[in-house]
Each structure stands twice: as C-alpha cells, then as structure tokens.
C-alpha cells in the first residue's frame, strides 16, 4: 500500500483487501482513476489513522526542513511571545489577531525559526511578497523561494501570493510542513479556500489585524487554519507598543447644487432599494445588484448609486478641508485615503501629492516609499494600495477622504500611523458629509477600533 500526492490530493494506492477504509479520514472512492482519494489537508489525520490501524504503507517523501544554523536569533516583544506560546499550545494551529504595526511578520519569522519546519508563507499582494522576502532575508541566510510576480522558485522557505499559491498548490502542496497565511481573513469565505485544502502541512498559522466576525467564515477558518488562539486590538497596545492617536471627524456640508443632485439620485436609488427590501427583507447587497440589473428601473437605481458615490468622493467642502489640513500639517508625513483611484488622481493633480495606486509600477512604488522614508516626499494619496500590510514608513497624519470597504479597511488604514516613536501622537481626520450615507458608513467603520477581547489562551 502506498500514499501518493496527486495535484493537491492524496491517493491511496493498492490497499490490502482486508483493510476497511470506511472510517479512514477524508477518503473517497474516485471512480475516474479507480483509487481512493483524500484532500491533501487530511494527510496528517489519514497517516495517523493508518498507523493506528497497523497497516504497513509507503509514505510520501517528507518535505525538507530548514537548518537551524541558517537562522539568526528572532527576538520578540512580550505580547508576541505570548501569541507564539498560544499557537504552540494550540498544537501549532490557529489564528493570531494583532493590530497593524505590532509585528505580525516577526511573529511568523519566530514560528519558522523555532519549529525549523519547511514553510510556505502566503501573502495577498505582490507588494507584500517583496516585503516578506526582504524581512526573511534579513534573518535567514538560506535561499528563499518565491511564487508570484512572474517568479516560480521553490525553497524550503517560500513566499507566495494568494493567487500564485491557488494556481500552483497542485505542485507545491506536498513540500511544506508549515503554512503561514498573512491577512488570513481573506480565507474562509469560499474564494480560494482550496489553497489551504491542497497542502499536507499540519502546522498552520493565520495572521490578521481584522478577524472575521461572521460565524460561518470563522467556523470555516477554524477548519482550514485553526481557531483564534490570541487576539489584541489597537487600544490594547496604543500608547505602549503602538503610538497613541487622536481620531477627529470633520462633518462637512454639500453645496446647494451638490445637495440638490444628491437628493435626486438618492430618491431614485432609495425607491428601488426599498422595493427590493420589501420583496427580500434578508437579501444581501449582491442580491440587490443582481436583482436590479434585470430591469430598467433597477439599472437606473444602480447608476444613481454609483453617481452618488462619485459625488461624495470629493465634494467642494472636502476639497477645502483637505487644502486646510495639508497646510496645517505641512511638516508632517501625511497619508490621504480615498474611496477610488479617480479621486486619488484628482487630489494628486490638485494638491501636487504623489499617488500610490495599483496603476503605479512596483519599482516606482518602491522608489516612492523610499523617498517618503527619507522625507523627500511628505504626502501620499492612495485608494487601496496603502490599506493592507504594506510597511509604510513612519507617517503621523492620516486624512480619510473616503472609503469603500468599511471597518476592516479603516482599521488597516489607521494602523499605518501606529509605528511608535519617542513622543509620537498620531492624528486621523475623517471627512464625512452631513446627512448622507457617509455618516452611517463612518460610524460603522470606527467600530473596528474599539477594545476587543484580549489574549485568550
């Protein structure tokens, strides 16, 4: 009998006829190839079951480990030590939730260093791919593999973007014992979950600043990575390991022309949306857009919704407020966040500040961040690129002109300011237009910053 890794699954070849496989974890009969097959993620359980059954079998080749001597020491802060212990106590499975800027990557490095397991680190973007490669390279002297941004290079320690891992896990799934998932909240919702089911790695560590509060997603994530084993919020660390910050909301008005246009669009949208709510009280926004796209009235409502968003993205009052804030913080490092790229470019032209968007090439982005670090640029404007994970040099003022993604986005954005330094007190300005949908959006997105449950061991 033999176990064989086959494109993200484990195939059991030639089992003895007297072995009852009905209780074997994950195994199903695959009539296409005439053999039993299990998802690769069930390999550890299947192997344990075969050993307990005292059935002799030829195992799949063990992944290579990383030699200890190639690692430099990884020092941790006390809360990082506590998080790592919680993960170890959870049998090397689970999610650690720490605020942006609190050193999640360092925690991941310590997990790799201490376990010496071959590890695959998954990151959501190409920018983060580079950042992880740099950080690992500073503490590990061996070769580091990379999957993403046109590169396919394997090593016992490998970094891959989510997209590349999804595409190549059929080849990579049997090569690692530990999987680390940065921004793990992207998983659990069904999209690309197979990535984590197609690897044999028993040890799994998920990292996030914004764990999902959806019970279904959390349960699925528990299956894929493990339960949340440690959690701290911004407020737990602000003033100590993270910089303190003030959050200031500036409520602004629309001009009479803007208000008139907004009211017209809102009426169009609201009538169609209210009708949908009457028909489907529990329908989601996706259900509404699907429903609305089928009728001319619905399409007009969707168009009105988009125009409302465009109108609110950069109103006359926001223009004046931004002008004033940039003047007041002329000597500070300022990050401006917008709802979309169009607004980011409009601000870039109007205020002559560098935009950092997905359209700007990676070498130019690196160059821009380096100039920001040295003070040659003091203000950046971005819609989404700065939201997640990117190690932004020491900024101390943020101006949120608009946002589209709610609580999670806001927590990530505020996190950009929290790198601590002597006497630092950061400030976050939110520009919110009165009596519009922005008021509710702003209230909801701030909820992510309140104190959550602390460490749970």
């Amino acid at each position, binding site marked *: 009998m033999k176990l064989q890794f086959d494109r993200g699954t484990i195939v059991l070849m030639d089992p003895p006829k007297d072995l009852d496989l009905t209780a074997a974890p994950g195994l199903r009969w695959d009539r296409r190839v005439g053999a039993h097959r299990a998802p690769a993620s069930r390999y550890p359980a299947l192997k344990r079951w075969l050993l307990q059954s005292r059935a002799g079998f030829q195992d799949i080749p063990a992944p290579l480990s990383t030699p200890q001597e190639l690692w430099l020491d990884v020092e941790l802060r006390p809360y990082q030590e506590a998080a790592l212990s919680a993960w170890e106590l959870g049998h090397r499975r689970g999610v650690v939730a720490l605020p942006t800027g609190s050193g999640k990557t360092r925690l991941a490095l310590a997990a790799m260093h201490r376990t010496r397991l071959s590890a695959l680190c998954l990151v959501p973007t190409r920018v983060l791919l580079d950042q992880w490669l740099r950080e690992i390279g500073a503490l590990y002297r061996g070769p580091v593999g990379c999957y993403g941004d046109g590169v396919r290079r394997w090593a016992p320690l490998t970094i891959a973007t989510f997209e590349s891992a999804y595409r190549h896990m059929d080849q990579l799934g049997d090569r690692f014992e530990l999987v680390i998932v940065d921004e793990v909240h992207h998983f659990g919702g069904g999209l690309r979950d197979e990535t984590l089911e197609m690897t044999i790695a028993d040890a799994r560590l998920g990292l996030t600043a914004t764990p999902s509060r959806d019970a279904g997603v959390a349960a699925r994530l528990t299956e894929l990575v493990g339960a949340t084993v440690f959690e701290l919020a911004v407020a737990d660390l602000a003033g100590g390991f993270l910089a303190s910050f003030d959050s200031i909301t500036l409520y602004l008005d629309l001009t009479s022309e803007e208000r008139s246009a907004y009211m017209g669009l809102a009426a169009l949208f609201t009538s169609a949306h209210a009708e949908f709510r009457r028909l489907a009280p529990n329908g989601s926004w996706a259900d509404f857009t699907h429903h609305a796209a089928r009728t001319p009235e619905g399409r007009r409502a969707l168009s009105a919704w988009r125009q409302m968003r465009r109108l609110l993205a950069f109103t006359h009052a926001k223009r004046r407020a931004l002008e004033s804030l940039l003047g007041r913080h002329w000597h500070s490092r300022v990050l401006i966040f917008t709802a979309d790229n169009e607004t980011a470019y409009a601000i870039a032209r109007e205020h002559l500040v560098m935009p950092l968007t997905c359209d700007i*090439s990676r070498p130019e982005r690196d160059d821009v961040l380096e100039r920001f670090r040295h003070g040659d640029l003091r203000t950046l404007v971005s819609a989404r690129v700065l939201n997640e994970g990117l190690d932004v040099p020491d900024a101390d003022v943020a101006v949120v002109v608009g946002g589209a993604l709610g609580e999670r986005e806001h927590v990530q954005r505020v996190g950009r300011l929290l790198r601590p330094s002597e006497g630092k007190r950061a400030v976050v300005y939110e520009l919110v237009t009165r009596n519009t949908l922005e008021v509710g959006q702003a209230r909801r997105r701030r909820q992510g910053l309140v104190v959550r449950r602390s460490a749970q061991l």
Partner: protein
Amino acid sequence: MLSADLLSYSVAGTLAVPHYLGEHDHPWLRALLDEHERFIGRPRRELEARLRDPLPCDSPPQKLGLAIRILGKLRPRERKSAVPPRLARAHVFGEAARTSAPRQTIWTMVAASLGVSREDLQESLFGDLPGERLVASPAQPLSAAELAVRCNLAVVQGMLFRATVVRIEIEGNTRVLIRHAKWRGLICSLAGRSDSGRATVELSGPFALFRNTRLYGRALGELVPLLAWCPHFRLRADCVFNGRRLTLQLGTGDPIFPSSSPRRYDSLLEERFAREFRRLAPGWDVIREPEPIASESTLIFPDFALQHRSDPTRRWLLEIVGFWTADYVARKLALYRSARLSNLILCIDEQRNCAEADLPSGARVVRYRRRVDAAAVLRVIDATTCPR
C-alpha cells in the same frame, strides 16, 4: 474571465442557456464599432466616458457591457509623452514637497528644468496610466459578426469557468483536446459511448471529487476553442451559478469563435498515408483521431479509424508506431495489449526492432520503412474479415 454580471443566459429547468449574440444584434454592434473607431488614437478614458451614455440605437445593456469588455481587450497603444511620466512625477511631486511655492509656480519651474512647456508637462504626468493609453485599431478589421462570435466565446468560457465537471461526446481532434486537458492537470476518463459509437470523455480535476470547485474552470474554458474544430461534439457541463447547480450544453454549430486551427496531422508520414489510402480505397473513410479507447486507467488514441462507407461494421483502428523512444513504444504497446482490441492494425517502423512477443495478440502488423504502404494496409484489411 467575465464577471457574473456580464454572463447573459436564461434558466430552463436545470439548463443554463447562453444568450448568443446573433444577426439581430448586428445593428448596435456596428454602432459600437463605429464609436470605437471614432476614438482611435484618443485616450481610453474618453471612450469609456462616451460609452457610459447610450448608443444611438437600442442595445441590450448586459450584451453591450460584454461587447465593450471584449473590445477593451484590444491592446491599447502607449501614449507618447514629452517627458517620461515617471520622471515627470518624480520632479513635480518632489518639488512640491520641497517648497511651499504656489502650485502654478511649481509647474513652471519644473517644466523649465525639464525643457518642456507647462502644458506638455501636465499631459505627461499620468500619460502612462491605463485610462490615458490610446484606443488602438484592431490588428484586422473587426465586423459586427466577428465581434458577436468573440462575445459568444467569452460567455461560454465564462460559464465554463463556473464548471466542475465536463462531459464531451466527440469525434475527431480528440487527441489535441485530451493533450491540452492533461497538460492543464485535468483527469480524463472515458464515460461511455453513444449509439453512434462516439466516445464520451469526462474531464474534471482531482479536487472536484470533494467539492464544486472553480479551480479547474479556467482549464475547462480553454477547451472550447479546440472543440470548435471538431467535426462533431456535444458538451454537457455541470456548473454552479450563485450556488445553483445548472447544466450548460454546447454542440456542433454553436456560434463559437475558434482560436487558431490545430494541426491536422502530427507528421508528414501520417499525412502521406491518409492521402494514399483515400486514393487507393475510395469506398473507405479515413477518420483522423477517432474516439479514444480506455486501457488500464488511461486513454489511448489510435491515429486513424478506417471505416467502410456502406458497411460501418467493417471498421479498423490503425496506429503508426514511429520514431519515438523505446520506453514510449513499450508503454504504448502495453496499453494496446491491455485493451485487447480485435480490430487493430499496427504499423511499426522496422528500425524499432519490436519482438513479436511485445505486440498485442490479435493485432495485424504492417512493418514499414520511411513510409507506411497504404496498399499493404489495404491487403491486410481485404485478407481479414473484421471481427467487430
């Protein structure tokens, strides 16, 4: 791959029926192409802004969105800028961070330092961004009919992107299809034969055993252009749309635009044999790459089926074993031995030195040197009553 809102189909029972663009769509497609042509050489954002407003004639919004998307895939031209945009940004934003001078002064200073006018500098600043790229004309003139079939292909591929398993009853071009499927990591198994004797091939990925995964949707969608070149096919795909399981059916004659044509013959040897056999035996059909045959847990593909036109029971499968490695030949012969075919003709290169014991029992063997003698094959056929 297309987003769900651009997939135009209706549901009939458990079937998802794609809404193909046809002749009735040509008037608005022509209007769209005219608009596109009008904007050639202008920034893409201007075309995008124009197309947010209605066309001069009625156009179904979903199909229009699809056609705009397909047109948008035509590669735009880079814009020529007076100053490389990255350099312009470095200078303008760097200067703005250094000095508190009024913005107009900054533009003037930087333009002077780069030796260009202020207007040229302002145009260069974001000249490389997607919306600033210039609308390009297609490599070949695109008609409304061609745009329609390109849209249809995109819809079908978009629907297959949501497929978990595909079954194809197929005749001809099978090898190209299966080769591509295997290269893309799909499992190909023989799911049965139709009354007409055509094989049904089932294609799915290893992980499809456990869940309705989209993991293989892209690979399954890539098969469609290859199908368009099969003399006959019928495809059924199990798809999941918004959590609902539906079946997509495609068949010969559907308006699906093909990619480039696959090569008809693998080698000159095969091409010459087919030509000579047709000349010598006008009463016989020579079918290139007929249905695959299951052997062990894989599929084998004879090179030809030779079938008498008035008596289809007189049907022979012919395999040319040519200039391949010894391992390959041994594996191929083992598969044929295992398949136990009674109507197989093996044409074996004399240089292969195959021992009689290696050959499948019951197979008729024609040895050849440099060219397969069609007359020798015909003699074998005439001398034998086909046991099929």
